[in-house]
């Protein structure tokens, strides 16, 4: 909560998971780079694909929608809370177009935009790209 700081970032022991996931948006098969942007913009461009991939993988629901569903059982009541506190059903094409524009790129007709997940193998001395797959894709008409 804003007025109750609970800042335990970077405090936990390492989770010895060998795989890490990373997300990028591709415009016409070129990754949209974000690491050279200044902090806040870079952070949004880095975190937004992660959160949106999570949303798609959770059947078009974010974590708050899942929480509300577990707490509110009356459907009309649930709809009210979800409609105000969650982005409801978002078309992937809307999000992909927003991301491209927010990153400062222009979208032309017939451009293809996709959200791609990369799986990275973390080894003691190196990292290796193991796999990548497209989560969603749109072609601008």
């Amino acid at each position, binding site marked *: *909560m*804003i*007025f109750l*700081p*609970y*800042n*335990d*970032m*970077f*405090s*936990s*022991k*390492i989770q010895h998971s060998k795989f*890490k996931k*990373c997300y*990028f948006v591709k415009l016409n098969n070129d*990754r949209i*780079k*974000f*690491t*050279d*942007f*200044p*902090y*806040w*913009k*870079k*952070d*949004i461009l*880095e*975190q*937004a694909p*992660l*959160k*949106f991939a999570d*949303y798609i993988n959770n059947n078009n629901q*974010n*974590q*708050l929608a899942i*929480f509300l569903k577990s707490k509110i059982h009356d459907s009309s009541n649930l709809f009210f809370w979800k409609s*105000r*506190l969650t*982005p409801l059903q*978002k078309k992937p094409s*809307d*999000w992909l*177009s*927003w*991301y491209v*524009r*927010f990153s*400062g790129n222009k979208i032309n007709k017939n451009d293809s935009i996709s959200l791609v997940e*990369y799986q*990275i193998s*973390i080894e003691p001395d190196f*990292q290796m*790209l193991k796999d990548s797959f497209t989560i969603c894709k749109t072609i601008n008409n």
Partner: protein
Amino acid sequence: MKEPTNSKQENNFRRGLFSIILIEFLIFVFYGVSFQGLHHIAYFNFGIDPIYWLFFLLQIPQFIFSHREMGLILDMIILLFLMYSVFIKENKLITWSLFILLMLYYVCLTATLGHRNYQTGFFLLIIPFLFTNPLNRKFAFEGVRYFYIFFYFSSGLFKIMNNGIFEPMLMSSTLKVQFIPYFIETNLSWRTSLNLFLIKHTYITYLLYCVSVFIESFFAIGFFTKKWDYLLGFLLLIFHFTNWIVMDIAPIGQLSAILFFLKYKDFSN
């Protein structure tokens, strides 16, 4: 509304804080992440927090996200109000408006981001100026000061309680994961080189981690005395700027908190 009558020293302190907040907000505008920059956001995500819920239940962020002109107007109002507070005088209505607008901005920004980074200085430090009565204002200043002391101290404590400090590999592993996008992009900047060096030299990275835990834990002294506040401000400056250099986490939003610790003791005396 009753307007506050301040001493020259308090005015200078207020002007200093509001100047930093003005600079921070100009950076937000320049980076393209101010209200106007958040136009047409297609997705937002936040947790269980009554402040976020209040704004979103009233559909204020949703309205701002869907109206570019609204974002532009709010950016201009914030900049004008901050300039008024810095260059002209203190006005209670303007201070209240700034507090609400900047808190709303923090809510919109972090809801878009999908996680919170606790860089709240740019609106929390306005709280004492909401009070006209000198005694209430003094208590509010003390409250904000203790909030930040607890914030940094607890962060250091978590690193001890969660065993982070006893894990020499933690920081280099964190950097390894944090910099995956840089490696995928084949970003060849000095920051990538620095991180490759730190990932390789685990014990230097561990030493940096220990120093950061020491700085955060050292804030405990602030619970007992204000004598060390200048040192706390100086350590905070080193802590945040090292974070910026090493981890690419810029303290934009928290700069006013640094100034607060550097100057508060002189002002409160």
